[in-house]
Structure formats: structure tokens, C-alpha cells
């Protein structure tokens, strides 16, 4: 049976980068409605750099892969999503212990907790937490009930997408969009949309692992 090793994590990162690049304009459109119209550009720049960094210094150490992504995003994204996704990957790297689905779930949960600690947002504040949180819960639940990783990640991706869609009516209470107050309602949060891509990328790239 194959494993959630450095190669698998690298594949996940590459798939996320591919999706972000593909959805770049859509993400930026979402940010134009309630932010400063740069989320797609920010994250595409960051993930392109992350893939380049992994190619420049490939590693067999799964934690090192995640750490490289973290520092690259922190350095290159510029906006709020830089330190937030950076913290996600940094904490995930620190928590990664093992190469099975459980280890991945633990790492991802630590990453999520890191975003909570960093951004001090709660679910319902119309942020990336609204997609990442349900995804972590679904992943834990599916693995806990004995589902294989591929299936569990599929459930996580569905939960993320549902959480993303559910941000539409919400009023933003964190980040730049919160300056809009009530006028932020009626639009999907860009960070929730990109986080959904992150989980979907895992479902695609890691389906056969762990």
C-alpha cells in the first residue's frame, strides 16, 4: 500500500497550485466583491513559487515539503492569506508524524488550529475557516468510522464546498471584508473558495495513498 510520503504531499501541493492557477480569476473576482481583488493573484503567485521551491530543493522528508510550502507562501503571498496558509502548512509540518491517513488528518487539524490561532476568527465569520473546519471534521469522522483515505478526503472536499457555499449569506467579521459590514453579505468568501481547492486537491492527489 502506498503512503502519504514526501512525493504524495508534493503531488497534493502541485495539484493545489494547478487548481489555484486555473481558478485564479474566479478567486480574484470573489475578492473584488468584498475585498481588494487580489486573492487569486496572491495565491497563484505563492503556489507557483512553492512548486518552484519544491523543484529546486526536493526532499524525502514529508515535513520538510510542508515547511517549504509554508515559508514560500509567507514570503510571496503578501496579503492576509500568506501568513494564514503559511501558518497552516507550518503547523501541519510540525504535527506530521507518520505516513498514513490518520497522520495526515492530525497534521491538517493542527494546520487548521494554527489558522484559528493566527487569525482569531471563528467559524461563521466568513473566512477560510468555514471551509477548512468542516473539511477537518468530515475527514476525522470518516477515518474514525473506518473509511479509506480516498473516500474520507472525498467527504472532506464535499464538506469544504458546502462550507464555502454557506459563506455567501454571511456578514464578514474578520479580515478586510469586515470593513464592509452588512454589505459583505451576498458573496462567497474568496479564502473559503481557495481552501476548498486545497481540500479538493488532496482528494485528487492523495486518493490512492495511506
Amino acid at each position: 500500500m502506498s503512503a502519504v510520503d514526501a512525493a504524495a504531499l508534493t503531488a497534493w501541493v502541485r495539484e493545489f497550485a494547478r487548481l489555484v492557477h486555473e481558478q485564479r480569476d474566479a478567486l480574484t473576482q470573489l475578492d473584488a466583491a468584498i475585498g481588494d481583488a487580489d486573492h487569486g493573484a496572491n495565491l497563484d503567485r505563492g503556489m507557483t513559487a512553492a512548486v518552484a521551491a519544491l523543484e529546486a530543493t526536493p526532499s524525502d522528508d514529508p515535513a520538510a515539503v510542508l515547511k517549504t510550502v509554508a515559508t514560500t507562501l509567507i514570503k510571496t503571498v503578501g496579503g492576509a492569506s500568506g501568513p494564514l496558509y503559511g501558518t497552516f502548512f507550518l503547523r501541519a509540518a510540525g504535527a506530521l508524524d507518520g505516513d498514513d491517513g490518520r497522520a495526515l488528518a492530525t497534521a491538517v487539524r493542527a494546520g487548521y488550529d494554527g489558522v484559528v490561532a493566527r487569525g482569531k476568527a471563528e467559524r461563521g465569520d466568513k473566512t477560510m475557516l468555514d471551509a477548512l473546519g468542516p473539511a477537518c471534521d468530515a475527514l476525522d469522522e470518516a477515518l474514525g468510522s473506518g473509511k479509506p483515505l480516498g473516500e474520507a478526503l472525498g467527504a472532506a472536499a464535499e464538506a469544504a464546498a458546502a462550507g464555502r457555499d454557506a459563506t455567501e449569506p454571511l456578514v464578514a467579521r474578520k479580515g478586510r471584508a469586515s470593513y464592509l459590514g452588512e454589505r459583505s453579505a451576498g458573496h462567497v468568501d474568496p479564502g473559503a473558495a481557495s481552501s476548498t481547492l486545497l481540500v479538493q486537491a488532496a482528494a485528487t492527489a492523495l486518493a490512492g495513498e495511506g
Partner: protein
Amino acid sequence: MPVGLVVVSHSRALADAAVELARGMLPGRELAVGVAAGDVDGGLGTDATAIADAVTAADSGDGVVVLMDLGSAVLSAETALELLDDDVRERVVLSPAPLVEGLVGAAVTAAAGADRDRVATEALRGLAPKQAHLGGPAGGS
């Protein structure tokens, strides 16, 4: 050595101008103020790795007070703490003071040789003269 100061801003121009203003309060006195501002391309943004580097450079053992503008500058400064060595991190204060007014208060106090807690306290008091003059936070014209 005085306490180190670092200005974190989305805007390089803003950070540089704030430092110039603070230096103007201290003619003839030396004051090193680190700047970590702008994104990698020089646009509006922040970079936690640059902040971590600036803090490390500003620390001479007596610690560093970091002033930030707002929003993701704060997130990046906090993320920078995670990138620092443990011993440096313990000596860093991320100040909730107003960027410009706090920097001036901090700079004058740091140049006078005060310790880190004192510098951080004076940063927080940076708005006080303006508020007192204009009649308190609720004051108008």
C-alpha cells in the same frame, strides 16, 4: 545598546516616512529602526520572513519592539515570531500601539536608553498628547 525597533507596514514608503519622522525628533542622536514593509515585489503587502530578518537584525540582546500598521501586517508579524529562534522570540514585543504616534514615542524612549517594557509602554502612550490636546478620544473640533 538601545532596544531595537522594527516597523512593519504594507507600504515601504509609509514605513520609511514614519522612520524619518521619528528620526526628526532626535536630531544628532543615533537610532536604528528596522523596516520590513511591502510585498516581495515592492507592492502593498507584508512578508513574515522579512519581518523575522529585521527583528533578528534589530536585536542586540535587549529585545525588540515591533510596530505594525494593520490587518495582515499583524498576522505576518505573529507568523514571524514562529520563524524566530526561541531566545530572540522571548525578547520581542508586538505592540498594539498606533504605528506613527507609537513609533515616535518608542523611538524617543529607546534613544534615551530605556528598557523594552518602558519603550513598549511609551509606544502605547503615543496617542496621549494628541488626544489630550484635542479633548480626549471622544473629542471633536
